[in-house]
């Protein structure tokens, strides 16, 4: 049974997730996959402030994502 996917932005700080897919146009998808956010990739939500964008740790490095783009990434929570 497929698990319910959610937006990356809805993850809590410290939670781990797995990328399901990226919604949106080709250029966003391309940039994100180039940076290593391919389907099935595990990541950790590091920071999500009220003023600043989202910070995740993926493939051994830190990535800053604007709120808009973080809302376009579908993920599922890794238990």
């Amino acid at each position, binding site marked *: 049974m497929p698990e319910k996917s959610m937006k990356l932005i809805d993850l809590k700080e410290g939670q781990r997730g797995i990328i399901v897919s990226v919604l949106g146009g080709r250029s966003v998808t391309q940039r994100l996959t180039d940076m*290593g956010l391919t389907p099935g990739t595990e990541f950790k939500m590091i920071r999500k402030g009220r003023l600043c964008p989202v910070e995740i740790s993926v493939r051994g490095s*830190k990535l800053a994502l604007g709120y808009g783009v973080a809302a376009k990434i579908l993920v599922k929570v890794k238990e």
Partner: protein
Amino acid sequence: MKITIALAGNANVGKSVIFNRLTGLHQHIGNWPGKTVEKAEGTLHHEGYTIDVIDLPGIYSLSTFSIEELISREYIAEENPDVVINVIDATNIERNLYFTLQLLELGRPMIIALNQMDLAEKKGMCINIKKLQKILGVPVVPVIATQGKGIHDLVHESINLVEKKYKKPKIEYGKEVEEEIQKLTKSLSKIELDYPKRFLAIKLLEGDEEIKKLIKRVETKIIKIAEKHAKNLECIHGHHRFTVIASERYKISNEIVKNCVSLKPCEVRFSDKLHEITTHGVWGYLIMILSVLSLFYIIFKFGNFFSDILVKSFMSLQPIFEQYFGTGITSNLAWGIVEGLIAGITIVLPYILPFYVILGLLEDSGYLSRIAFLMDRFMHKIGLHGKAFIPLMLGYGCNVPACLGCRIMETQRERLIAVFVTTLIPCAAVTTVILGLIGKYVSLTWALSLYVIDLIIVFILGRIAFKVFPGEPTELIMEMHDYRMPDLKTVAKQAWFRIKDFIYIAFPLIIACSFLIKVLDVTNLSESIENLMRPITVDWLGLPVFSGIALIAGIPRKELTLITLATHGGTTNFAAILTPVQMIVFSLVMMLYIPCIATIAALVKEIGWKKAIFITVFEIVFAIFVGGIAFRLLTL
């Protein structure tokens, strides 16, 4: 014998440090033909070889997302460098290898420079270089560029590679993808282009528009075949074709990392703690505000002191100059040229140079990308993302390198907005006027208020520009590399190149214009100009008549406004010739009214003369409008 080496790699992997180490001072920085992307070339001589080194832009992929990526792959395919050195960050191998795999597909002889080995060790990483070399099929050279370690080996290996016959390594994708690639490669067997067939096949499967265009010129049937193969892949994997290929590449690099890198547990490092606190939702902002304010405080405290000394010593030259050349018209005109030169020097040395050195240190250490992170949501309000904060900061030094710095923005539209708001930032020259006039004769609070007013104006105009130029803002997707000790040589070079922008563009214009103003003075034309400007200066802005020529003098260089104000007002005690309200209105207009001539030249270079003129005219009208309103409000 002559060899050409191209350096390629992600951003922030120490590529430019390696470039500097290889070429020393024999460098030439220009632009790629017809593009506003920097091209750095250098030469070195080694064992009878003349080696040309080209530093390609720092990129993450070889797709066509950005112009930098296109330039890099076109260069490698068309110019056929003898060796490509792929610089990899040893602390971040997985992401870097994604790019390496694409470079390998271009088929040029390649060496991998595994840089920042010292940092990787500190991170507890143990890298099996022999194994890595075996899997990738190309030489891997461990490097610590900041200490110069491994640089010699890179040169040595490059020469080796040229002398031996290069055996192309082949890295296979997963079964389904590999099958499609091989089938498509076969269909391409009759196509003769600069790119290797396998590369073309992979790019066609990805749906690369540029490659499609190239192939359409010789053979249209293949596009249809490729479309079928790509559809097939999309069907099997359930994702966009581009994502399918990218996932495959990342799968390979992930496997390689698993095979070659082992991690020892190590304690939390200082750089991680620093990262955490400087991106914190509360502390991060506090630290940012404090560090930016202290940066400005130090620069202008120091700059003021140093520039006073410089001005005094230069001005003591005037009597000597007059002794030799007399006080006639020609001598007076010649002194105008000298004055222009002095004006330039007294702004570069005390203010712009130290400002850019400190900013460079912050940039190279990684702090500026943290500021970009913190400022992202704010910058979004004016249709830009966090990275645009960097050229804005540069603008407080000088608008010229700041305009050129807007190239870090991804799209044309964003460059335009960024360039526009950058020209509204008060540069060091404007600051000297504000401090010298408002800070000295009105109050420091008013001087600071002018900066706040300026920021509000930047925000409002930026927001309007965002609404006027249609399009979605690009989102921030930025890697934040670990903090590291800045490399002094790289910082010094960066500062020098930024100042060079100023010297080459601004200096000649400043000198020419101060000469022109002297001509106006000598021929008494300035008086008639002042009278012509009377409706604006006196009637609308409430300023004295002689301020007209001072505003004109600000066109070449804004600090000249103060000097001209003194000469035409007949005194350097501005309190005797201007009321506080007049000083504020004058400063406000001067701050906004026109990007100086050098900035206009930079604008023309970056966005074309039509848009440059539009911005210039708009800012003149806008400044006069705001000045008049301020005058009326302040005299209520």
